[in-house]
């Protein structure tokens, strides 16, 4: 507020200024530093619980990769996380706050389950393809609902997608308690296990969803980086006015992107239901939709970085189940650590774009260094 030229004494002790673009190497170092600091903070938390942080971190790493079976379990956890993160990435790139991945997963899985339960006699390959399409279209439509209201009435998409999560969840509990209840379960509310014909095949010991995930990494990368539609998404994300001025049909782009975003999440639901759970439960999404948002953000919306982050997160989750059995710390530890890591990364982004200026150093700009967190 005070003009420094007129009144240098009253310059605030600490002020914030924009930074010129940092070189890529420095940004990477800054982010790594944030991760290290977050692990230190997580370590302090673990130490407060009376455990040695290094042993716990070691157990997480070794626990997730100690045997072929453990590693397969880790990859199995990764599949829905990876695919869903890629799905929300499309929407986030457009600055459309799709936090309804949870609901899109559930609804996609529900649509696919219809075919698994009632058309299980179909040719296997055909059935799987039909179920993929059902999952994709189901999730896509679930994502399209908030998009339609967004472009038509500017309805807040964050809250609307959130509400749709719970609505989808209760659709499943309705189907589970009523029309789709397993007749062989003697009144216990659950949906029947899928026929072998309707479950995903395995590839290298893991359901082949992981191949689809890897394929999607490449597809989403190319789509965002090298196609016209991908370019349109980033322009709309940066500024809708610019997009409109350039003659883009913003409404169409939002609708299309949300359909794709929801569709990919729906596919993740289908893969989880038919590949891992082999049935439909209310926990088919089980928080994946929310974790995926963290992953997408940590991966800076870059599909390859997302692949890496989602792998590390699955290691964290798988490893923390080993920590639970060995040290009695519950698996919620993984959520706590994920939260801490993202807090630090979110904070670190500030130092990529801005810096603190101290009063005494205002006139010798070059000496100013960003303060660590």
């Amino acid at each position, binding site marked *: *507020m005070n003009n420094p030229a007129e009144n240098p004494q009253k310059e605030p002790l600490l002020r*914030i*200024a*924009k930074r010129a673009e940092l070189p890529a190497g420095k940004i990477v170092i800054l982010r790594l530093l944030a991760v290290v600091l977050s692990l230190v903070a997580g370590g302090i938390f673990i130490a407060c*619980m009376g455990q040695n942080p290094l042993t716990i971190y070691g157990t997480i790493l070794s626990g997730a990769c100690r045997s072929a079976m453990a590693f397969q379990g880790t990859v199995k956890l990764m599949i829905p996380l990876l695919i869903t993160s890629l799905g929300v990435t499309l929407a986030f790139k457009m600055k459309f*706050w799709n*936090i309804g991945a949870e609901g899109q997963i559930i609804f996609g899985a529900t649509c696919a389950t219809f075919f698994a339960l009632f058309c299980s006699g179909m040719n296997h390959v055909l059935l799987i393809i039909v179920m993929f399409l059902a999952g994709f279209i189901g999730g896509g439509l679930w994502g399209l609902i908030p998009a339609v*209201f967004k472009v038509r*009435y*500017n*309805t*807040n998409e*964050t*809250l*609307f997608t*959130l*509400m*749709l999560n*719970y*609505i989808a969840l*209760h*659709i499943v*509990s*309705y189907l589970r*308690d*009523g029309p789709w209840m397993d007749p062989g379960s003697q009144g216990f509310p659950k949906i029947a296990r899928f026929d072998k014909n309707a479950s995903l095949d395995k590839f290298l010991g893991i359901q082949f969803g992981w191949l689809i995930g890897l394929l999607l990494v490449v597809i989403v990368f190319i789509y965002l980086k090298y196609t016209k539609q991908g370019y349109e998404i980033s322009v709309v994300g940066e500024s809708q006015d610019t997009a409109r001025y350039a003659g883009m049909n913003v409404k169409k782009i939002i609708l299309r992107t949300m359909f794709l975003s929801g569709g990919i999440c729906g596919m993740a639901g289908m893969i989880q239901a038919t590949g891992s759970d082999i049935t439909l439960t209310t926990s088919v999404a089980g*928080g994946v939709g*929310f*974790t995926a*948002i*963290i992953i997408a*953000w940590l991966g800076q919306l870059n599909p390859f970085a997302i692949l890496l982050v989602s792998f590390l997160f699955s290691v964290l989750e798988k490893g923390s189940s080993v920590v639970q059995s060995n040290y*009695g*710390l*519950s698996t*919620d*530890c*993984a*959520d*706590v650590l*994920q*939260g*801490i890591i*993202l*807090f630090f990364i*979110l*904070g670190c*982004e*500030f130092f990529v*774009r*801005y810096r603190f200026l101290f009063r005494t150093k205002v006139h010798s700009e070059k000496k100013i260094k960003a303060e660590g967190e």
Partner: protein
Amino acid sequence: MDMVIKFLVAAVGAGTPLLFGTVGEILTEKTGHLNLGVEGMMSIGACIGFMVGYYTDNFVFALFFAALSGALSALIYAFLTVTLMANQNVTGLTLTIFGIGFANFIGIFVLNKSPEGTLKLPEKITAAMRGIHIPGLSDLPIVGELLFSYSPFVYIGILIAGFCGYYLNRTKMGLGLKAVGENPGAADAAGIKVTAVKYRNIILGGAICGIGGVYCSMIINGGVWISDNVGGLGWIAVALVIFANWQPSAAILGSFVFGALRVLKYYIPQSIFPFPIAFYDMLPFLMTALVLVISSMRKSSRINLPAALGLNYFREER
């Protein structure tokens, strides 16, 4: 008739945690910051408040530490979004995931250490939370049950909501707060300390959410600790802010209406309305979605949505 009174009483009870969450979030959103971490702040408040209550057997301590922990978790959010200008949606969401994980983690940690294998609040604190009884007033037919029979939480909640309504609409500080949420640049130029106002109200909002959380852990399950005890109420509270049109006084009515929706399934005879249970569970969320759509359809000036909601304020860009 008896059934109707029971239903209304249950609705007030079910709506109380929502009331705290909603009022807390209204204060937060009035600063222009959309904190999606309500669920997380409530969870942390639920956990810390419960544990303090469990060990000290003191109701006031439990409330105080629930509010304090809610405030501290809101401080994380405030530091990241106000000072470090991080993305509000992602920060709030992270706070939710962190908060739920933290609460469940601590809950199981303490549970494993307890000799009985369950965590149940001791006698004295349970008695302090029970419905009040004012001789004479509480014994009145109907009125006594409807107005003077609730847990102290209900009255605390209504008091806080009333106080916040007064603070927002009738005080200079509240006016400054609203100015910050509408146009931080103009508020700054008018000499309002934008950063201080944001911090103060986000933290205050977090404290109120924390009290709502401890209601979930201490009352809903009869004083026994279970994981995930907030169970999505924080999210309904975020939505209720819209339903209440950013007015704390309207939040009182709104949260009791939503409380009624939550308990409706126990009071509607299946023979008359043969809806599946899942439909009733879905109802609060369906209603919220409807409210969202309807309020966005009629773009009247009576909608109190803060104009700068979701936008971080960087002084040099104003």
